[in-house]
């Protein structure tokens, strides 16, 4: 368990953090710029000193105002990937990778060969940092942080300074590293696309406060968080597995708890876990089973909740059985259809809306993850989750 409970005043920003994060998987820290995301992870790293409170990662207390504990940055055993890779220009790529490795204490759980292989660094080792592309630089920075043998990996918008093609190049490496190296990752981002592709746990930060924390699909499915996520991007996240491919039409069928989804072809073997983000604005509703429409993704359910929004919009949460799907429709449609909690509806999602940007690898099958909310307080005497 990673316990972050501290406050810090930084100019106009009043950072008030109170969350517990699981000690496995990727926890995303999401918020607009200026929400205090970077200050938060800098406090975890030891770069920013809190005014009061406590920071604990597993068994190790990094900061505790009451007991006077404040570990030095280098003593915290964290890996930090900065937005601007910050590679040492006087060292080669191999020299950069070795920098943290040489200084790592304890057992070396992360091996040189596996880092070089997973991040595809073999052909870069002799190069100097200034000869690398932005994406390559960020991959080296990630490898360097991993080889430092961290107990926690901090990533501060590692893709934000890259253009779209470079982002697409680096993202799969980050997806892989979370799977390959059993290591908690705290990932700062203001891109909901990155967050849904990478994260298991989501923390939303708004004006310095942690306003929501929980399992990603759970947090995403709650309409009250939509304003924080943004009207355009807000939606539902479904964990699916690949069922089959239709090569003639370049389509893939996915299966999830409540049915199937047809999406543009994904290059993964049947059985592979994938995560699909369905934006609420891409979901339409009908009172009866829609016939004679181009849309193939039609799933029955019942209206669970209707949340009116500013202007013409209403956010409708539909219970599909075990999962929920959110639809952003107009209030006018809502009234015309007479929607109310309990109304039986059909949800429709265009396959075209589920492009590669909204479909990502899932790190592990959902069934393997504990069902309990990760931010429940740890029971005394329960086995430590850290390490």
């Amino acid at each position, binding site marked *: 368990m990673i316990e972050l409970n501290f406050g810090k005043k930084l100019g106009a920003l009043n950072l008030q953090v109170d969350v517990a994060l699981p000690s496995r998987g990727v926890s995303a820290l999401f918020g607009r710029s200026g929400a205090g995301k970077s200050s938060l992870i800098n406090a975890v790293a030891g770069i920013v000193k809190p005014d009061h409170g406590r920071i604990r990662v597993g068994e190790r207390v990094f900061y505790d105002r009451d007991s006077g504990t404040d570990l030095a940055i*280098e003593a915290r055993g964290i*890996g930090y990937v900065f937005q*601007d890779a910050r590679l*040492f220009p006087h060292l080669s790529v191999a020299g950069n990778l070795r920098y943290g490795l040489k200084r790592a204490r304890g057992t070396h759980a992360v091996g040189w060969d596996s880092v070089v292989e997973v991040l595809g660094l073999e052909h870069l080792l002799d190069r*100097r940092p200034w000869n690398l592309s932005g994406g390559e630089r960020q991959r080296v920075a990630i490898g360097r942080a991993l080889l430092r043998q961290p107990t926690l990996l901090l990533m501060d918008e590692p893709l934000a300074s890259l253009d779209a093609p470079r982002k697409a190049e680096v993202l799969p490496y980050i997806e892989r590293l979370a799977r390959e190296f059993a290591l908690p990752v705290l990932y700062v981002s203001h891109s909901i696309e990155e967050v849904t592709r990478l994260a298991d746990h989501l923390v939303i930060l708004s004006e310095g406060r942690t306003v929501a924390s929980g399992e990603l699909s759970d947090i995403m499915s709650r309409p009250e968080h939509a304003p924080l996520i943004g009207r355009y991007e807000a939606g539902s996240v479904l964990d699916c597995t690949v069922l089959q491919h239709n090569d003639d039409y370049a389509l893939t069928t996915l299966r999830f708890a409540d049915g199937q989804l047809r999406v543009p072809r994904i290059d993964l073997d049947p059985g592979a876990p994938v995560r699909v983000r369905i934006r609420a604005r891409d979901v339409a509703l009908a009172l009866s089973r829609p016939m004679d429409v181009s849309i193939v993704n039609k799933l029955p359910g019942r209206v669970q909740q209707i949340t009116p929004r500013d202007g013409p919009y209403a956010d409708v949460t539909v219970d599909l059985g075990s999962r929920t799907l959110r639809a952003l429709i107009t209030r006018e449609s809502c009234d015309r259809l007479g929607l109310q909690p309990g109304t039986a509806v059909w949800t429709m999602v265009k396959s075209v809306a589920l492009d590669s940007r909204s479909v990502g690898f899932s790190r592990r099958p959902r069934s393997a993850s504990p069902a309990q909310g990760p931010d429940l307080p740890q029971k005394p005497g329960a086995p430590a989750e850290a390490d």
Partner: protein
Amino acid sequence: MGGIEWDALLLSLKVGAASTALCLPFAIGVAWLLSRSRLPGRALLDGIVHAPLVLPPVVIGYLLLISLGTRAPLGAWLKSTFGIQLIFTTEGVVVAAAVMAFPLMVRAIRLSLDSVDRGLELAARTLGASRLDVLFSVTLPLMLPGILSGAMMAFAASLGEFGATITFASNIEGETRTLPLAIYTATQTPDGDAIALRLVGLSMALAVAAITLSEWLHRRTQRWLGRH
């Protein structure tokens, strides 16, 4: 070239190298204090360090004489404890040249320290390096262009030091008579013009070589760091 020219040249090179080496650790330390510390007397330190640039060299020489001469407390202590006598000796020339060249070296090193990206130092600490470790493994290597060009500047300036040297260490052949002092002596000697001219040529060649080497080293190390 005769014995006079050789002696003066060798002595000058020796003094230049020794005074550069003497300056270097102090210059790095002072540059650090001026650039990174919140020392209360920073402005004063800045002023003292840069004084030799604006004071007449003879004033510096005289100040050295009254503080490090054999009868001055500090000079007496040096002599009794380490057996070092500065006046009338090569060591004295080195000290005089070092004091005069010091501000030049501090300026170059301080500029390079100011340009070191603090983000890289923080990154090094997240990778497990202590503050001291960061200094040697990141900060100093990144300062290398400034350190090298500062050292070359100090070396070149030491070769040309005259006023403080002649005031403090006097003009003794083979002991304190560096190139500029040898030129001065030659001009004061009847029929010394030929020697003086040869020494002047030598001085100019040395200065040009030092500046060229300094520029080249700077470019080389900047490129090594990926800067253009």
